[in-house]
């Protein structure tokens, strides 16, 4: 099954295309690479429209060169994808890749070429040492782990938890962040169980329950793992709240995997479509017009990453060095960029926003967060 997944990833990854925003003839052209899962293409369309709209007179034109992928591509595939994007003429920055593991694999390629890499939803703290030109929009796994632990201890008033984690950079990072924060809240960790998409969740859950029955289950994994574990808990007759990381909030895949236990799911998001600010409302409206459905957290994050680079090109020109400086100066000598997901800056001045969503009736509802 896994091999089948790899083959499909390879097949999809060779589909590449170009969306040119405001493609008038100009001596000053910039290309933004986009390496992410294919299901955020609506976000690219919205971003392209906005870039064309914001282009001023004879300012530089911006093209988005994308190379779609599916989650779970092997590291060597991600490296090849990065090399292909880095070789595109006029490339000044890349948005991607999808998830911590893929972003970590691709980071050396971009950093050696001096190309800015903006990761929309990667949380591994290893990215901090991936290179000077890798910038993360999402908070790292220690921050997210602390947020989850605080919700489990204070929101759900749990004293014992079991952690299921996806055995990769994302899952282990989030696991370690959560474990450290749970200890600070005095919450006991009964069991830590590695899983993947092909795991026998019923058996793993049953075996884990023999080692102790938790108040809450924490899943440091994606939508399939989180939903399957919630369903297995319900089937074992131990319905418990399942709190998952940001990687799980992909609807409707999450609720399909959970089945009747979907309402027991909580998941972290970096943004929610019900955000009351005007930028968010406008983005939701445009997104709905393109995709026919409301955007999710990952859509807003990728949209913001693309718009951030486009703004850098507009302000400082299509130069890799200038764009590197622009991003470095955000929040320091330059005000933060106002994105849909909030003010964006990097380094100590960054203030990531985290939301805890409760899935009710197939839709996320904000329970904690701005």
């Amino acid at each position, binding site marked *: 099954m896994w091999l089948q997944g790899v083959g499909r990833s390879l097949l999809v990854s060779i589909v590449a295309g170009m969306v040119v925003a405001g493609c008038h003839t100009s001596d000053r052209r910039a290309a933004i690479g986009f390496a992410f899962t294919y299901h955020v293409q609506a976000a690219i369309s919205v971003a392209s429209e906005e870039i064309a709209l914001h282009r001023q007179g004879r300012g530089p034109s911006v093209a988005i060169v994308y190379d779609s992928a599916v989650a779970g591509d*092997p590291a*060597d595939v991600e490296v*090849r994808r990065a090399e292909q994007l880095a070789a595109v003429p006029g490339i000044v920055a890349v948005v991607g890749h999808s998830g911590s593991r893929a972003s*970590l694999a691709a980071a*050396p390629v971009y950093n050696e070429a001096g190309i800015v890499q903006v990761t929309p939803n990667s949380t591994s703290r290893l990215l901090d040492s991936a290179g000077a030109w890798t910038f993360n929009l999402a908070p790292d796994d220690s921050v997210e782990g602390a947020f989850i632990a605080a919700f489990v201890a204070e929101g759900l008033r749990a004293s014992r938890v079991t952690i299921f984690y996806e*055995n*990769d950079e994302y899952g282990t990072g989030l696991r370690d962040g959560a474990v450290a924060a749970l200890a600070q809240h005095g919450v006991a960790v009964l069991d830590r169980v*590695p899983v*993947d998409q092909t795991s026998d969740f019923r058996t793993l859950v049953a075996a884990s329950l*023999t080692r102790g029955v938790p108040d809450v289950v924490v899943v440091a994994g994606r939508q399939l793992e989180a939903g399957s574990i919630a369903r297995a808990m319900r089937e074992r007759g131990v319905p418990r709240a399942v709190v998952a990381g940001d990687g799980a909030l992909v609807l409707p895949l999450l609720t399909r995997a959970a089945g009747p236990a979907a309402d027991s799911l909580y998941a972290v998001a970096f943004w929610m479509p019900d955000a009351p600010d005007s930028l968010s409302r406008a983005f939701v409206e445009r997104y709905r017009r393109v995709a026919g459905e409301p955007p999710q957290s990952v859509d807003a994050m990728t949209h913001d990453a693309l718009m951030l680079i486009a703004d850098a090109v507009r302000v400082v020109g299509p130069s890799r060095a200038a764009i590197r400086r622009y991003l470095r100066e955000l929040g320091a000598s330059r005000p933060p960029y106002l994105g849909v997901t909030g003010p964006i800056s990097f380094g100590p001045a960054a203030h990531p926003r985290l939301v805890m969503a409760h899935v009710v009736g197939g839709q996320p509802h904000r329970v904690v967060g701005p």
Partner: protein
Amino acid sequence: MTGGTGASSTAGRGPGLRFIFGTLSALSILTISGLSLMLAASLLPRAAELRQHMQPVSYLFGALRDRMQLVAATVRDARRVVAAEAPGDAEALRRARVALAAASGRVAVRPYGGVPIAMRAALSRADEDLTKLENRVQEVIAFAQLGALSEARARMRAVDSLDAAVNDDFSRAQRAGTEDLLARQAAFDGAARQATWIAGVLVVVAILLSALSLLTLQRRIARPLADLSSALDRVGTGDLTVQLRVQRRDELGLLAEHFNAMTAVLRDRAEGQGRFAATGELLAGIAHEVNNPLQAISTLAESRIDEPAVTAVERDDLQQILQQARRAGKLLNGLLHFVRPGEPEVTDQDIADVVARVLDLLSYQFGVDEIHVENRVAASLPWVRGDAARLEQIFVNLLSNAVDAVRGAATPRRVTLEGWEHEGRVHVAVTDNGPGIDREVAARIFQPFVTTKGARGTGLGLYVSRQLAREADGDLQLRSTPGEGARFVAWFPAAPRRGAALVPENGQAPAGLAGLTILVVDDEESIRRPLTKYLARLGATAVDAADGVAALAQLRLLAVDAILLDIRMPRMDGIEFYEAIRRDRPALAERVLFLSGDPQQMHEARAKTLPAARVLAKPVDLQVLAASIRRLVGRRSPA
């Protein structure tokens, strides 16, 4: 300044030595730095690349190997559990789960650059397969824990399959790593070989350049220097005809030109010196021949002056004869002193006397050119230390220049000499009212070969004069305003005390010699006779002898108190006689006064033992002679 030889005009204008040295140095630096840079540029990046590559590769392999070992231990535990007929014991299961937890999270994929794609792919696959393996082992443990051993065994087969896949992935990664390492090593070896080859070529080039440098140095420096050294040796032996070939107009070529010019000047000077020396020899002979008659004339005149039978008119005539004879003798001795200075002898010198002697020497010239000379150098000035002849030469040069300067000027032509003492220095200024010296020439006036006299001048007079002044610890300076004449000032350190001479100055009262027996030894009757007569008039018993042999005979018969001894005589001259009595009668030898028609012969080697303070130059003033005798025998002057 003397021009170069004819050879210099045909010399090629090649590159200068500075250019050659600069070029050779630059080539050496370029060769060495080029070699270093080439080696650094060839090898350092490769070495850095190899090192940079090795670090992540070794880290990734190490991390993956550690994780594999942990997983392998878990797999062994899982096998033992599923091999049992009954569900495994809780402790074995717990141990397997702990090992599994330790293994998970040891992610091998790190964001390192420089890792070859094939190796990274193989490592990633091994890493991902390890993750799956851990997950499957986790399921095996879970089934075992739940007592479902048949399910656990079925899962174990998947574990074995993944285990084999992990090993294959790891082997593949190792092969990729080894191949990449070998490729990088081969590239490094290639770079090293290339660097060695280029280094070899550069070393050969450096050797050739060194040989070229040595050859150039030999031709352009060593050989000309050897020629110059050889030529200097020949000059040292007195060969002034030597000339160097001027092949190039570089620094050494210019040096050769200067050498040729210098030898030409030295040759000219030597010829002049030769004529001058011959003149001096001739003059010495003439002086001796003239001084003796002058001595006879002055002695006779002086003897006759005081005779009662001489009338007043005759006395005036005799006085004129005496004065002119003394003047002629003084002039002759001064001239002789100047042209035959002999060995330098530094003693206290009366600077006023030195100036007076020089003025006497040049007095004829002043008269001919209608030059009014005013001597304001007082006799009361302190004495100075120096050699009399050299001091005289300084003022002869200065006064000769002054004469030349004012000769073409309108009358009145004036040359003034002034003397003063200031801060322990005795200054003498020679000032003329000629046209003065241009500022440009004045700046170089003391350099050799600088002259305003054209072909008549050697350009050495002032140069030599300053050297002589400095040898006497003094100096010579020009203080001149163009258009207002020239003023040269010579100064010398004042002597600590005023010098004293055994020979009294003129003007002293005649000394009484009554009771003394004095032997006069001179080969000329015309001198012996008036001298003995004069001494007898002063009360002495005067005996005479015509040469040293006769004088020794007299000494065997008589006891004498003093001896007046001529130096140049037949049979036995004054020096031989003096040596004889110094040996046999040393006390008497201390009471010998020498009379010389050629005082400069005192500087000859044979005359070194003669006491200079007891030498009187002919024609001698008889009153001075009497006073000297009295001083010699230790008598006071009569009141």
